[in-house]
């Protein structure tokens, strides 16, 4: 493997729009590629890909590979895996990033298994660094540090992939920040002939029916989040949180425990197995603050914790701690907001 092999991001898209998670990975990929002195490449596999490169170029993409075939959209496992496997044998990327989505987590393992390249799921941070094998003493330069929570989020592990390529990693939506690199950045477009990468035999799974709905919940981009935990106690009490969120112009989030208890739907879950958020204001009600939850909201600017337990772990990272029943306190917050705002 030469040090000049490039970094490639597998881009997902729906309704002709490249997914946010892919743009976030391109943003991160640009930084890593620059550090390595290599090109940032994007791979888009699907149908009706005309001009789709213009959506990714501003993120600093040097090469866009496009593989178009009507049968490649919507996504199915084997055909997309075949494209990646055969293309990677040809262009030998040193790093491949994909979203830790239903697609990326279905595709990544299949590709890594065939290429015998290591894959690290759900990374929360990616860095470039050196490594020395503790046993052999062999030294490696410029490896991808794949940093991820392990053991239910109770520890953080740095994983490296010393000998196998590509070094593959998936990252959840919202974990990396999406940022335009240069609005007028232009790279090269490489149109690949789908039939050279995927065979008819790969199309084994047939999609009979598909209902994709844009999530109605947009907690990722909400500047104010009122989040509830198991301590909220019931679906009915969550209505109070919705009242507060509506009053303040925010969204309602939840901890995994509250979602598991059925108080709210899964797309409101914040934390390692949900969404990562960075609002201006995070009001945590009845959330004890398991590590997994804190990891998904610790970058909030201001945190208010409302909890019966004065020693709830979340209080240590809160700017304001109000000890008491959320059923008492939340209505007061609503009342005084209405009184003081014009």
């Amino acid at each position: 493997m030469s040090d000049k092999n490039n970094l490639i991001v597998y881009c997902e898209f729906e309704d002709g729009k490249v997914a946010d998670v892919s743009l976030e990975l391109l943003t991160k990929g640009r930084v890593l590629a620059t550090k390595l002195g290599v090109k940032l490449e994007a791979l888009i596999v699907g149908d009706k890909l005309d001009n789709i490169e213009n959506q990714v170029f501003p993120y600093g993409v040097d090469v866009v590979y496009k593989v178009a075939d009507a049968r490649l959209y919507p996504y199915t496992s084997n055909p997309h895996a075949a494209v990646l496997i055969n293309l990677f044998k040809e262009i030998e990327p040193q790093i491949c990033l994909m979203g830790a989505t239903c697609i990326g987590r279905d595709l990544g393992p299949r590709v890594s298994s065939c290429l015998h390249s290591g894959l690290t799921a759900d990374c929360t941070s990616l860095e470039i660094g050196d490594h020395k094998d503790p046993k052999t003493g062999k030294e490696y330069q410029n490896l991808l540090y794949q940093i991820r929570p392990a053991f239910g989020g109770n520890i953080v592990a740095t994983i490296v992939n010393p000998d196998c390529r590509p070094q593959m990693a998936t990252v959840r939506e919202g974990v990396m920040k999406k940022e335009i690199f240069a609005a007028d950045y232009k790279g090269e477009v490489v149109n690949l002939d789908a039939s050279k990468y995927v065979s008819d035999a790969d199309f084994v799974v047939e999609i009979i029916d598909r209902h994709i709905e844009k999530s109605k919940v947009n907690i990722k981009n909400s500047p104010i989040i009122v989040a509830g935990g198991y301590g909220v106690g019931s679906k009915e009490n969550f209505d109070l949180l919705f009242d507060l969120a509506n009053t303040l112009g925010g969204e309602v989030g939840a901890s995994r425990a509250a979602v598991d208890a059925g108080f709210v739907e899964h797309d409101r879950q914040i934390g390692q197995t949900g969404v990562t958020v960075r609002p201006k204001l995070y009001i945590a009600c009845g959330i004890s603050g398991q590590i997994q939850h804190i990891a998904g909201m610790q970058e909030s600017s201001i945190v208010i914790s409302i909890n019966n337990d004065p020693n709830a772990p979340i209080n240590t990272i809160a700017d304001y701690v109000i000890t008491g029943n959320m059923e008492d306190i939340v209505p007061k917050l609503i009342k005084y907001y209405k009184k003081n705002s014009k």
Partner: protein
Amino acid sequence: MSLNIIVLAKQVPDTRNVGKDAMKEDGTINRAALPAIFNPEDLNALEQALRLKDANPGSTITLLTMGLPRASEIIREAMYRGADTGVVLTDRVLGGADTLATSYSLAQAVKKFGNYDIILGGRQAIDGDTAQVGPQIAEKLGLPQVTYAEEILELKDGYVVVKRRLESGVETVKCPLPCVVTVNGSAAECRPRNAKLIQKYKYAVSPSEVEKLDDAQKALVEARPYLKLQEWNAAYVEADLNQVGLAGSPTKVKAIENVVFTAKESRRLENNDEQIEELIQELIANHTIG
């Protein structure tokens, strides 16, 4: 039509509720303090297998697990709910494996079964949350895969129709058999243990457990072959030792750190009207809200 169903399952430490006593003073995890449980989504997969068995009398469900010899506990747990038998793939050389080495070892074990119609497993295990082993096994066996399955709607004529739960909707797919299906936590919960099956299988043991039984129990196991669980090692499944365990894992753990969050200086407020109104006024004044 009777089916040969393989369910992949893992015995995992219960990482969902790691209390203070489970963390050692040096910040590492005291695994011994965590109960070992049946990986939750593998139970969802077992339920889908049991439904297939209900609909196709004469079918057999075999649980396959890789781990320590004590993982036979989850085989019994599955048998109390309706599984027929199980295999523990256990060998020191398999230890320290990443997902790729794990999937290779399990795929080798699956090959030993010869005939099977469908392989089911949980989407992911709670100790790693990677969701990689299912698709990797499918690739190694040259089988198609259906991930994020919520319900098996139909199985007939060599096909399975599966409803998948995606982050932004649902998808129904038709996939030829044999295939690998990984089941989501949103699928139906596993049925509870059945009292009759507990009676029937409570002495189901693996070879390394037989020794712990008294003579009467040993005689019982001898007389009833369905109480004999199997233990396979790396040699038995003809595993290439370069592809298993720590040595066969392309990913290496470079460092492990305890999670430490920077504590902030918190202001403690009383639950009274004055202090809450002051807080609101402050948040409005600094344009956080309003």
